[in-house]
């Protein structure tokens, strides 16, 4: 089998759509929790009540200058974001909701560089993938309405490019992140992890661990994370290593969430992607309704 035909076979192989539904239900909730401090201060975030970085022309730090919105428009975007996010999670008019949610997230990220993080950049793309795929066919209001209307259910297993994209996304992120780490300090500075757990992100757990974990263990953890990230495309590709990679990934993000305060939403975003993408089919079968 050539590489091309193997890729085509992998893309066309039927997959459990529960994977898509896990992302459809959990991701909007995680993203809305991350966005909540912004949404509740919509006029400071998108409007003209707060500080705005002026138009800097060709400055690389400003991807696009978006003029501040009047208060009514800022609140409208915030309300549209929350409503479409909740509607996506509930699976009501799923694809249209996901598309609107994605559009508001794209706008929010571009409008205010200061409040944009990895969650702000990844979430609109993930919502776009949901809108493009067959989301909302299981465990959703749409599925319930269809059953009431014509007594039928949608298929729970079928080929889906959206599922494949959502499986590739975390693995690509890990690999790229691992390369970036190796290119910078992670191979020659032994205490990169330790150096990151101070400051305003520090949680009580991070503080406690910073005081009890010996220096060598920080270095060992750092090396383990680097190996996990750099080799993710292989460890997630092979059936035998996949469960170990999944457990390590979930554990790593759980620790990030517990130790880095506001980074908890990024950790939950990655946990959702990992769980949806790589939980074994036999576990997902139990979720089919």
């Amino acid at each position, binding site marked *: 089998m050539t590489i091309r035909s193997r890729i085509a076979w992998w893309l066309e192989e039927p997959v459990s759509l529960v994977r898509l539904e896990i992302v459809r239900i959990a991701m909007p909730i995680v993203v809305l929790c991350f966005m909540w401090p912004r949404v509740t201060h919509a006029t400071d975030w998108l409007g003209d009540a707060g500080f705005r970085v002026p138009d800097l022309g060709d400055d690389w730090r400003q991807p696009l200058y978006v003029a501040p919105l009047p208060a009514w428009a800022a609140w409208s975007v915030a309300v549209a974001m929350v409503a479409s996010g909740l509607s996506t999670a509930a699976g009501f008019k799923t694809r249209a909701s996901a598309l609107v949610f994605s559009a508001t997230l794209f706008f929010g990220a*571009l409008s205010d560089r*200061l409040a944009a993080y990895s969650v702000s950049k990844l979430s609109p793309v993930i919502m776009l993938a949901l809108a493009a795929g067959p989301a909302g066919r299981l465990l959703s209001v749409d599925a319930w309405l269809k059953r009431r209307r014509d007594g039928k259910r949608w298929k729970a297993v079928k080929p889906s*490019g959206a599922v494949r994209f959502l499986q590739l996304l975390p693995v690509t992120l890990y690999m*790229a992140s691992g390369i970036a780490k190796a290119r910078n300090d992670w191979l020659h500075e032994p205490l990169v992890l330790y150096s990151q757990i101070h400051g305003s992100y520090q949680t009580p757990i991070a503080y406690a661990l910073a005081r009890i974990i010996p220096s060598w263990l920080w270095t060992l953890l750092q090396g383990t994370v680097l190996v996990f990230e750099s080799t993710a495309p292989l460890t997630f590709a092979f059936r035998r290593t996949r469960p170990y990679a999944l457990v390590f990934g979930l554990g790593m993000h759980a620790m990030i969430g517990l130790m880095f305060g506001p980074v908890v939403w990024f950790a939950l975003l990655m946990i959702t992607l990992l769980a949806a993408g790589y939980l074994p089919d036999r576990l997902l079968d139990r979720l089919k309704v």
Partner: protein
Amino acid sequence: MRKRSERKAIWRGRASLALRVIAAIYLACIALDGGGCSWPSRGLPRPIAFFTQVSVLFPKAAHATIDYRAEAWVCSRQAWVELDTRPYFPINPDDKENRFNRAMHFFRENRKTMHALDRYLVQRHDERPADDGVDPGERIGGVRMMSLRIPIPPVGSQFERYQRYPLSHYPNHERKYFYHTPESVRGRRCAGGDIVEER
């Protein structure tokens, strides 16, 4: 003539192929960005490239804990007093995801942004003073902005959990100033000059 359902299937196939190509380009750009390749940022429009810059997370060791602070020039006292910027940046006020911190992180060496930040803080204090550490009745003529570079304690040492202390807690050598309102501007504002006119 092709049947409508056939035409629909053809267009569906084309759309599916287009989405796959876009997805592949997006994932490739994430991978290239992590590898330090500048093709995505040079080849894609900036607003699109922005969404591919997601993989370079904590790549370097921190050599100090960085916090950003401001002081205000109090006209009546002719002195610098710490200005708590949190009331004017209410999103995530207590951690470094605060927008003031982010403005300083990205734009501290960009004069245009620093001037805008200066005007914003002075205007907000003078028009709608909050609990910012400066008496609401006091007019301020300008601001001075800095980073605090708080040393990271050695591994295994006993140290306090991070908390925000007043500026006076930190020695001078841990402060690095990036911006201050020019003296002439402070004088003009203290004399009642309009801040909006400076724009």
